[in-house]
């Protein structure tokens, strides 16, 4: 059974931006994609820049894939899978995330 952690209310997420949450010791970047209820969660750690910053990147799309661009060196990460578009060998952890009664919830079980 998935173990959901309450993070914040959906209202706390400005459309098309991200925040970082601490979920059972892990830094998770949570993004609100568009101004609706679409949210994604991947690891906050940028393996190229070696810093916990991905939640501060710009959101966008490459083809059909929703992505975040790292604020340090601009590599793109697929928000649904954590894959790096520039480097096949790199895949970040991604996390189940949902909205329940206006509350954003994340599961640390990747």
């Amino acid at each position, binding site marked *: 059974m998935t173990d959901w952690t309450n*993070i914040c209310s959906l209202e706390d997420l400005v459309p098309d931006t991200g925040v970082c949450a601490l979920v059972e010791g892990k830094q998770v970047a949570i993004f609100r994609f568009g101004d609706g209820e679409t949210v994604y969660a991947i690891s906050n750690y940028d393996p190229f*820049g070696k810093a916990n910053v991905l939640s501060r990147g710009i959101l966008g799309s490459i083809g059909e894939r929703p992505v975040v*661009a790292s604020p340090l060196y601009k590599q793109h990460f697929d928000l649904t899978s954590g894959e790096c578009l520039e480097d096949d060998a790199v895949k970040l952890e991604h996390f189940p995330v949902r909205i329940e009664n206006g509350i954003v919830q994340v599961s640390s079980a990747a």
Partner: protein
Amino acid sequence: MSKKRIIVVGNGMVGHNFLATMAESEKASEFELITFSEEPRLAYDRVQLSKYFSGATAADLALTTESEYDDSGITYLKNEKVVEIDADNKTITTSTGRIEGYDKLVLATGSYPFVPPIPGKDQDHCLVYRTIEDLEAISASAEVSKTGVVVGGGLLGLEAANALKEAGLDTHVVEFAPRLMAVQLDEGGGNLLRHKIESLGVSVHTEKNTKEIVAGEECRYRMNFADGSHLETDMILFSAGIRPQDELARQFGIDVGERGGIVINDYCQTSEEDIYAIGECALWDSKIFGLVAPGYQMAKVTAAHITDTLVNLKTPELAFKGADMSTKLKLLGVDVASIGDAHGHTAGSQSFVFSDDIEEVYKRLIVSADGKKLLGAVLVGETESYGTLLQLMLNDMDIPGNPAALILPALGDEAPAGLGVTALPDTAQICSCYDVSKGDIAAAVQGGCCTMGDIKGATKATSGCGGCAALTKQVMDAELEALGVEVNNDLCEHFAYTRAELADIIRVKGYASFKDVLQGHGKGHGCEICKPTIGSILASYKNEYVLKDDLMPLQDTNDIFLGNMQKDGTYSVVPRVPGGEITPDKLIAIGEIAKEFDLYTKITGGQRIDLFGAQLHELPKIWEKLIAAGLETGHAYGKALRTVKSCVGSTWCRYGVLDSVSMAVALEHRYKGLRAPHKIKFGVSGCTRECAEAQSKDIGVIATESGWNLYVCGNGGMRPRHADLFATDLDDETLIKYIDRVLMFYVRTADRLQRTSVWLENLEGGLDYLREVVIDDKLDICGELENDMTRVVGTYQCEWKTTVESPEKLKRFSHFINAAEEDNNLLYVRERGQRRPATDNERIELVELTAEKH
């Protein structure tokens, strides 16, 4: 094998070009290069000599430096004239008595100004126009003169007249012939040129033969003419033609022409096989070539000949076959061009004339008897078609359609007559200064060049007189298109527009949000390229708070938290220090805040203070304190105005002529917060010593005795560029007006992340065009540009002040949205009394420790 010694007599434009070609040659190591210069300095750009009067220094004009020669292994002796040649023993002797042997001798002694043998010509204020020393003498004389006369109404004479006029003299041109520029222009062209020049306030006197120069009554001198009339003047500048400097050849048995000039063959050899002559001193086929391009061609031929003859003879011979003397230039602001047989001397030739007295344009075409080939042309007042016409003539191409169409103005929507560059053969010479052909440019494009800057770097085209810029760009674009590179200037996959186009769309439609722009003109969700670009354009025009909910997602790495992100994810804090001026109290406040938050502190390269290592949650606290101390955001994070660097100026400095600090502070306050395609930096210096390095800034301002000189589009950074002198002697108000216009025109038309330097280099028409837009308001947009700037100035806010006053916004400034903890990945080491991020090696320990915890 010992090296062959090559001695070059004269280090002028052509001598230098020869040396540079030799030094770059594959066989450079086989030669020892030595040059003697009679002048006190190494080669400089004589073609641009007149720029000296608009502020260019000897260093600006220099074509090389001593260290460049040292690096290339070229030995040079300045102030040392060669006075003897011993062709039998292959030695030369100099004015200091030095004797040197050579294997090959190259005479590149140029020419000297001809001064007609008029009694009284040798007085103090009777000068010539050829060297930097001449210009210094002219400047000095102009300072104590009110009226100036140029003797000679040719190309150089008119350039000299311009210089006198700029120096503020009441200027006259005295010409022996019945019209100006008799060599290049026909009667119609000469008359229009005269009319235009006279309306600029320069008096022209034709058919005047000066008999004597005597003491004047109202002025220093009086010139008496053969027809009984006279003219009073304080100074006289002779520009009555040039004579080849062939003295050495004449004295030491080398053949010279009847009317002067060292006779050369197709390989530039003189009557002595091992002695060459190149440039203006050389006479080929009874002709002297008084332009730099043919000289460069001779230099190339000679270098090829010397390197081949001394080694082996494999490569096909390169020979000098004469040169085209067509010219295009701006004289006293009037566009003038002359192509080929401008006078219609060719037997059976016919001509077409177009003359428009209202627009003041005169054009004449000379075509062959059958009307198919272009032989020559004269253009005055409008020279846009110069490139096309020149190519038609040089390549002996058939005139497309009716020749008259080539000079008739385009009416209505019709495309102007002409021919596309695609019609040119690959061998067509595009840049004559550096002999770059269409094929060379095509090859450069195939090799990956796709900007004018790239082409310039790869082929040197446009880096001489610059006259070939328009044509070079056309060739480049056509080649790019032919390669299928489909000159794609789309911003990204979401917008099929350039940044400039998007800026127009947003301005005209008045869009205020990314969403509207995307819906109207784009697709997908946007990305890290189009979002900040559009965010920046919106900011340039609307200037709203950048962290407003719908603007925030557009902000790049630094803007989104109003700080520069460092390698470990922390931020730097840079308060604005306008003009670099700061009170002790503010310094103390900064010091105390830095101490409290243990921030690494450094004076930046931009005259302010950077505090590093602030975590997200600390930023608002730090800024609250800075704001309380009277400081505001420095926009170090934005593509926006950064710093206005100043020198201390007239307030304290014993040399300062204007108050550079006050001006810098005023400019920084005016433009702070202006978001632009890239960052913008200013410098303001209080005098010409230039301690603020204004000429390396996007906008540079330098004080002079008579006002501010404005320089534009300089750059430090990865590819430094000296700023160009844009306008001189401005009062405060005009200075600011011009800066407003330049900056807003840049905001409108530049590409994304294009500094002003690159922008100007890619701006078609370059500096002249920018002047036309900004000073003459050619596009009739200056009013709009000023309004746009007024809006930005009027809506300024310190973004940090707005932020610390907004509890909603402050929520984002913590590492975790759901916990008070800090980022556990930060690790610091102390060095020289301050903290800095740990290096990867220093971190290893920490990583192991955290791993253990799991």
